[in-house]
């Protein structure tokens, strides 16, 4: 339900703040009071961190597909993403970065 509401948001910056909050919710509830996931310097040591962030990245890709012409500010597009030699504008296409997500999948059992 919340994911559907998130993906329906037409404005990028509203979407950005909302997905940041949903991202934080998973860290808070998985990590709890003392787990690695609820502490920024330690979270990536928990293997679930990577699945979580892959999901966040996938949601970003799904939002892009639903809203193909979002409005960005020039300052935002030119923001440098150190330590990587990239700006925001250079990261908008996941295909240009060399990967993509399946938008849907279906499987059937093969009789033996």
């Amino acid at each position, binding site marked *: 339900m919340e994911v559907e509401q998130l993906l329906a948001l037409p404005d990028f910056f509203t979407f950005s703040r909302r997905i940041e909050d949903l991202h*934080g919710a998973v*860290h808070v509830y998985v990590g709890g*009071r003392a787990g690695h996931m609820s502490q920024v310097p330690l979270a990536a040591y928990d293997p679930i961190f990577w699945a979580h962030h892959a999901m966040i990245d996938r949601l970003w890709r799904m939002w892009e597909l639903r809203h193909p012409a979002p409005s960005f500010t020039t300052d935002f597009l030119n923001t440098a*993403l150190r330590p990587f030699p990239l700006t925001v504008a250079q990261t908008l296409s996941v295909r240009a970065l060399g990967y993509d997500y399946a938008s849907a999948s279906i499987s059937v059992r093969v009789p033996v």
Partner: protein
Amino acid sequence: MDRYVSEELELPASEGQPPFTRADLIFHEVDHSGESFEARIFLNAPDADEHTPTTSETGFAGYFYIFGHGGCAGEEGHCEVPENPDDTDDLRLAHPLRPATKPVVVTEALRALTEARFTVTVVPVMPGAEGPRRGDLLFFEELELVTYD
């Protein structure tokens, strides 16, 4: 603080004007250098705590999350936020510990109020296997209510 209760706020819409289409509570300069927590927001519920149900009947209006740094793990000065972070010629990302802005959409909860004056209560909660626990976790500078026609 372990709970914030605002002064009484007044709905900006006056009689005869159309109702707002959206309302946001915006928390400015929220600290995220400490522990992670869920901030539960209630309207007209100054006694709300970590055990208050998050339902419309209790005045629950929404939440935001802080994914906290859990203190500084580096050497002295490692986590100091540099001054003058608003240099418009500096296109680098802001310092990771720069306080956050947390907007929360509270349209339905605000519409449900029966009085023009109301308070905002924020309860910072850490979830855990033994149930939610309230903590001295919430630090911010300003609360703003924004409504849209």
